[in-house]
């Protein structure tokens, strides 16, 4: 009997200590929804109880039902014949069970059949589903598509699509990437033409690497403005699967075998415009991708959790030299570092989702509220949380996905030769984790997305708040280490800014983002240790490990060393 919620102390601690009251009371319209819907909460305590119970439900489905099927799904995967994708029968069963559990419209408003849960709770679900079967998260996690229609679509579109998503009848895909447009989405070419007589849009062209490209409902980024070549000529469209939308092939991938990744050909596919023309990339896709980035962070975290658990179990059971291998310092240090990295990523991820939730509620008031009810305070908070979420979302994705790769690497290492074999799950986790730091924007792009806010010190007010907490004893000492790192980080930021060398800036961006992460997570670990003394140990381990790593990056940034910039050609061409 395994329940991926009740067996995870850290996740339960996170839920118990999240302060979501502001978010929930705004989302629930001060709990007025309870009058209309019999499953809406009557107050915050009721809402929290709902979250816990539904997480237990998803934890049970993940641990009891989905996880035991994951190996077969990975080995056999979906079937493709005559341009038709058929998912593995066990994947179909997984989806059916999640549908029966009514968790396909987790964040959608109740009037469309959703649960109206915050992103934070949805993210916890994606973490657990990913721990059970990473590839299933690519289907479960497509709820962001419905979220995007909810955010930017017309009321008519919402009524047409959202109930289908919420019931799980329709699945979705986000069709962005093209053969020549990966990281550079501004260059998307898929053509959208408007028939002036009927006022109907049609799509023509190709998309590639489309996760679940066989979906019933597609959100498509397409060039609606003839003669343009940049992001401002792109709009977003909704279209449905049909004979004009051809799945040409599905990819053979290293990991996430359970989900089909498709190449699509659009032959005059009828489509509806979603939102306003020309805002497709700059507004809607950015919003869609930010949502998806949180989901991928959770996917990476779930895989890492699974990899850690199996490595931990193996290290306890495996005896060499008449000793369980977990007792050897090289092994227990690996296990401890895996555990710490997972806890750090979880702390960062759910701090991020909380900020995303705050942004969403204030943004919704500012954009959709009655004009007379929108106060300057609402606008100010919308702006503030938008800025914070814009830094934390890529920072969290960079950290969680790279972390997951490290943890899965060590997971195999702990298994030794056994881990290299297909008999154990360790190799599957390693393969599945590998995509997480690539899709929805590579780590390198996450760094680019985060660095602006780091240079502007967007997170400083949050860190000030934690730095001002009444730490004593060991925590006091540890907090001085973190304060010290932050001072150095501010120095490094200033140094890079004053250097006014854009190549150097790009070169050390990675280090500055890593350093910011060490500092910020250090504060989060301190804050959590103050809530539960059991966690002092984790704050200590995390911070003592972080300091030398931080100092290394600090030395690199402050060196001002430009020899790589000068010589890279000679170096890589030798």
């Amino acid at each position, binding site marked *: 009997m395994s329940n991926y919620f009740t067996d995870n102390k850290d996740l339960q601690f996170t839920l118990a200590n999240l302060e979501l009251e502001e978010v929930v009371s705004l989302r629930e319209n001060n709990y007025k929804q309870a009058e209309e819907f019999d*499953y809406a909460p009557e107050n915050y305590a009721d809402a929290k109880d*709902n979250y816990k119970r*539904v997480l237990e*439900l998803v934890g049970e489905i993940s641990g009891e039902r989905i996880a035991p099927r994951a190996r077969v799904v990975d080995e056999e995967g979906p079937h493709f014949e005559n341009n038709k994708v058929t998912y593995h029968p066990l994947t179909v069963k997984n989806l059916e069970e999640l549908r029966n*559990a009514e968790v396909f419209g987790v964040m959608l408003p109740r009037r469309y059949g959703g649960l109206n849960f915050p992103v934070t709770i949805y993210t916890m679900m994606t973490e657990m589903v990913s721990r059970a079967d990473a590839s299933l998260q690519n289907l479960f996690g497509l709820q962001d598509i419905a979220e995007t229609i909810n955010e930017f679509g017309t009321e008519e579109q919402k009524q047409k699509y959202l109930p289908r998503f919420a019931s799980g009848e329709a699945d979705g895909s986000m069709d962005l990437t093209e053969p020549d447009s990966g990281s550079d989405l501004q260059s998307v070419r898929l053509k959208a033409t408007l028939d002036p007589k009927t006022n109907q849009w049609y799509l023509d062209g190709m998309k590639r690497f489309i996760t679940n490209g066989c979906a019933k409902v597609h959100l498509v980024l397409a060039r609606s403005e003839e003669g343009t070549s940049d992001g401002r000529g792109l709009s977003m469209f909704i279209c449905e699967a049909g004979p004009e939308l051809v799945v040409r092939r599905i990819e053979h991938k290293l990991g996430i075998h359970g989900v089909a990744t498709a190449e699509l050909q659009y032959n005059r596919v009828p489509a509806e415009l979603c939102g306003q023309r020309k805002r497709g990339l700059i507004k809607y896709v950015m919003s869609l991708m930010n949502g998806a980035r949180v989901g991928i962070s959770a996917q990476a975290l779930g895989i890492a959790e699974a990899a850690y658990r199996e490595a931990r179990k193996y290290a306890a059971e495996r005896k060499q030299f008449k000793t369980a291998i977990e007792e050897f310092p090289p092994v227990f240090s690996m296990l401890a570092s895996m555990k710490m990295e997972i806890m750090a990523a979880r702390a960062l991820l759910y701090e991020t989702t909380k900020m995303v939730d705050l942004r969403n509620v204030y943004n919704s008031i500012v954009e959709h509220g009655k004009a007379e009810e929108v106060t300057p305070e609402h606008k100010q908070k919308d702006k503030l949380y938008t800025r914070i979420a814009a830094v934390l979302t890529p920072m969290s994705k960079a950290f969680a996905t790279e972390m997951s790769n490290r943890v899965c690497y060590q997971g195999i290492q702990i298994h030794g030769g056994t881990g290299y074999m297909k008999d154990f799950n360790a190799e599957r986790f390693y393969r599945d984790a590998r995509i997480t730091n690539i899709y929805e924007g590579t780590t390198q792009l996450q760094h680019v997305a985060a660095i602006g806010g780091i240079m502007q010190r967007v997170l400083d007010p949050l860190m000030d708040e934690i730095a001002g907490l009444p730490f004593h004893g060991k925590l006091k000492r540890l907090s001085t280490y973190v304060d010290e790192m932050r001072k150095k980080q501010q120095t490094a930021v200033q140094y890079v800014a004053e250097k006014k060398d854009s190549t150097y800036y790009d070169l050390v961006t990675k280090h500055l983002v890593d350093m910011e992460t060490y500092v910020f997570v250090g504060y989060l670990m301190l804050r959590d240790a103050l809530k539960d003394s059991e966690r002092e140990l984790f704050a200590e381990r995390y911070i003592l490990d972080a300091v030398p790593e931080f100092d290394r990056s600090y030395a690199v940034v402050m060196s001002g060393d430009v020899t790589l910039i000068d010589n890279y050609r000679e170096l890589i061409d030798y």
Partner: protein
Amino acid sequence: MKRQLMVFVKQVPDTKNVSGEAMTPEGTVNRSALPAIFNPEDLNALELGLQLKERYNFKVTVATMGPPNAAEVLRECLYRGADEAILITDRAFAGADTLATSYALSCCAKTVGNVELILCGRQAIDGDTAQVGPQIAEKLNIPQIAYVEEVISLSDKVIKAKRAIEGGYEILESPLPTLLTVIDANEPRSASAKGIMKYKKAKTRSEIHKLMRDADYTDAQALADKENEMMAKNLWIHEWDAAKIQADVNRIGLKGSPTKVKKIENVVLKAGKVVSIEPTEAGINGLIRELIEDHTLG
């Protein structure tokens, strides 16, 4: 009016996850050491009932006999799609064996009335008797099909079901009303999110009264108002006592139970001796010699 079926369920100690001494020194089950769970095969019975609800538009009423906290197992049924729930509870029911239990449950079915189909799990994991279902059918004087895997068809008057027999299965027809005992042959659905959020608030009268007392509302009018509100919201779990189901007091509880437990033995199963044999010529020869000596080989 909708056609009606009933599912009898039971809350049982989780015998697979024993966290301490399973038996008290007096030889009764130590319930505090064993978490209470939904009897597994009752979940199969409920699943079958819910499938029949979807196929033939039945109303599904679930009932359990037990102490007040057994209401939890009824809420679990509501989370999955049951329409109505009855807790049969009364101090007079305590100490019932299978005879007294099946009598009480048959009285409950009569009180509900117009039940075309009764579903029970084959057996409960605490007693493993598999007697209660068949005895209910006997007391109601209706046919029964035991060890059912699935219902093949159902008309207004006849049910056709597939049941497991040793080495195979058989398909039986029975006139309605009838009783089925169901085995572990379907996959019980999980609860649904909306079901949980709504029906976690479903309460029995005793539970409502306790909540109201805790909140310092004790006057009769406030209690009655709350009860009416819960009924109107369909959050009401019926709480029926011996009088309500018109049970003969001499046939329920300890009084109605001829079974007397003479002695309970705590059987400790011990694993056999583990011998490790080196993968060498000498080791294998030694193993073969031993197997020949104790006549496993040769």
